[in-house]
């Protein structure tokens, strides 16, 4: 798909304390990956050779992760991966950037300089594994101006649905209405905030919206243009979850303990997910290790008990320690005889010997980066 470029707007969703130190797109997911790895890998696999990641704030972690784009084979001389810091001149970011349209406006030169006919634009922070070639095919077949990807979340509670951009989809796939996070959902079609359109259309939308002083791409541009544009839906029937809160972050990680989710998301040879290789040694299990139903990245040293948990790289679980129903980001150290239940530890957290941290399944305890307990 040499005729298509990608634009990913790094998420500014606020999930304290984890997004105090990084963009939500750079949050670790499923042990070894970051949220942005999924869409970036999908774009690379679909053959996109020009992908811009536009950032708003807090992007050092994201840049450190993406670097030259080599893990996705996006380290190219001219095309490949471009990290696009916010274009705010000498102003304060908060004055300039009030919505994703402002970020897109800041990268208009990058969009204009591109030669691709189509753009896949991602504004969201969802986790999924999708074949973008099929999305593009559907976009062309429908002669759509804009294609919006969605998942039908039939059977899901109303308050869960309210987290999403909801779409009214007609029988022929045309979108007749869009509502962003309505309190009373009228449909179960949840958009993942990924749009396909011609690059020229995106440019004209940006031009028009900036002239009108608009800030929000979905509310001000797409929803307002329902009448004038052919907007179609593309239904993705695989795994989708939005990472927009601490509990959502926790649940999303825990979902990866299921074999179906693992197989679909991380073991599909046609849609591989790549990430930065950190050259970690294998994980080592001591004489007293007990591990059940857990997902464990490389570089860990486990001498205690780990049950129903997801561990990122370089985590140490010492003798007598028990980690249950928890998500541990990289380089956590759990001291001897400490107990963790329903806890989410950010990077570099140390729990000293003999401590207990117990959360609830409805509210896991989040611990900020670098904390020593």
């Amino acid at each position: 798909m040499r005729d298509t470029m990608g634009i990913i707007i790094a998420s500014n969703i606020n999930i304290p304390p984890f997004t105090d130190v990084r963009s939500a797109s750079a949050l670790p997911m499923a042990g070894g990956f970051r949220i942005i790895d999924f869409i970036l890998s999908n774009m690379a696999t679909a053959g996109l050779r020009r992908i811009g990641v536009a950032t708003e704030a807090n992007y050092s972690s994201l840049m450190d992760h993406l670097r030259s784009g080599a893990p996705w084979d996006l380290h190219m001389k001219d095309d490949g991966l471009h990290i696009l810091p916010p274009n705010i001149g000498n102003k304060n970011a908060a004055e300039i950037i009030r919505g994703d349209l402002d970020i897109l406006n800041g990268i208009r030169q990058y969009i204009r300089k591109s030669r691709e006919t189509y753009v896949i634009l991602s504004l969201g922070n969802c986790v999924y594994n999708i074949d973008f070639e099929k999305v593009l095919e559907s976009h062309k077949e429908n002669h759509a101006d804009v294609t919006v990807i969605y998942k039908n979340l039939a059977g899901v509670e109303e308050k869960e649905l309210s987290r999403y951009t909801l779409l009214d989809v007609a029988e022929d796939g045309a979108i007749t209405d869009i509502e962003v996070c309505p309190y009373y959902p009228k449909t179960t079609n949840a958009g993942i905030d990924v749009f396909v359109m011609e690059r020229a259309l995106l440019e004209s939308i940006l031009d028009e919206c900036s002239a009108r002083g608009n800030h929000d791409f979905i509310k001000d541009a797409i929803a307002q243009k329902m009448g004038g544009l052919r907007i179609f839906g593309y239904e993705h029937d695989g795994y989708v979850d939005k990472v927009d809160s601490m509990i959502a972050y926790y649940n999303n990680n825990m979902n990866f303990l299921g074999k179906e989710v693992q197989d679909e998301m991380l073991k599909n040879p046609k849609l591989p997910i790549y990430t930065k290789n950190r050259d970690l040694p294998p994980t080592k299990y001591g004489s007293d290790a007990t591990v059940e139903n857990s997902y464990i990245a490389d570089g860990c040293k486990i001498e205690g008990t780990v049950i129903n948990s997801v561990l990122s790289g370089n985590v140490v679980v010492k003798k007598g320690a028990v980690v249950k129903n928890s998500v541990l980001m990289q380089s956590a150290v759990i001291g001897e005889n400490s107990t963790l239940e329903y806890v989410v530890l950010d990077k570099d957290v140390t729990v000293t010997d003999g401590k207990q941290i117990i959360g609830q399944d409805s509210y896991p305890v989040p611990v900020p980066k670098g904390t020593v307990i």
Partner: protein
Amino acid sequence: MNAKDCVAMILAGGQGSRLGALTKNVAKPAVPFGGKYKIIDFPLSNCVHSGIDTVGVLTQYQPLELNTYIGNGGPWDLDRNRGGVYVLPPYQSAAAGEWYKGTANAIYQNLGFLDRFSPNNVLILSGDHIYKMHYGEMLATHKKSGAAITIAVMPVPWEEASRFGIMNVDENGMIVEFEEKPKNPKSNLASMGIYIFDYQILKKYLMDDERDPASSNDFGKNIIPAMLNNGEKMVSYRFEGYWKDVGTVQSLWEANMDLIEDPPKFDIYDDTWSIYSRNTALAPQYVGDNAKIIDSSVAQGCRVHGKISRSVVFSGVFVGDGSEVSDSVIMPDVKIGKNVKITKAVIGQGAVIEDGAVIGETTDDSSPYISSMCTDGLVLIEGGATVSGGADIPKCSMVEAN
């Protein structure tokens, strides 16, 4: 080309015939090791950590795996504009075309490569040893002493000294005598096959050696004795630490086991001296409800439902329900079915062990699989082989792929 102070040449052409089926299709330096690595990762990573950014890898036997593995050198940060890693196979020239006749001849045939960098010193390494060593410190010693050659040596147990090339040194560390596998060793300082030469002196000796039709063109047999005869300044560099020549199935198995002792005899967890390797980041390892893993190392992408003890399990391995793996080395992408029992075995890459198979449990000297390569009860299953359901593979067996 920019001049380099020191260029490393890694001898990676050997077959490693004592590794049996493990080196049927790959050269010894390409044999998997330690859960995520290949043997050649160790000298390559040592070079990078030692500040050596120009490395020639001399290949000959079954080079495909090694060539594709090394590629552009990116995983070791050896994809340099000035320097980097170069795979150097034997080649044809207008005058002749021949295989590498010996270790010295392999370097001789690549003097043209070395000349491009006009190095002051050349570091000669083997591609089949497991160790961590700061070559930069050895190079500093070499330069300070002004030696023609500096040879790394390490003390070995006296009773094993007669298996090594032994260096007899004086009180200043000068090498006064070299004995290849002496019956009555006078010293227990073994040569590690790691040499730093002054390049101009190396070049002269290689050219002289090439003119001698009786020579076997080997560093240990010819070059070093010739230098000793001529009274060149030869200095020993003493190395203390873990070093293992993984030349046999048994020693390869032992070196893997050394990683999982507590504390490990050889530490690959030191992040100031990471061992780099070419591998794609895979999904984390999933450990199932009824799994039990103790005293073992397990790498990414595995799915474990059975029991694993005292074993090194590489990436992408599946261990089914009710299976028990102990004292074993399970190489990448091996599939182990249900209720399999594996004891003290090395299972090659991609092998399939079907449900109910038993490996390394029973003794049966009449079994057609018994091999002299496999000593001390150890079993070797070749990569890609299938051990069919319910089969009983006795101790000391070697099972080859069809």
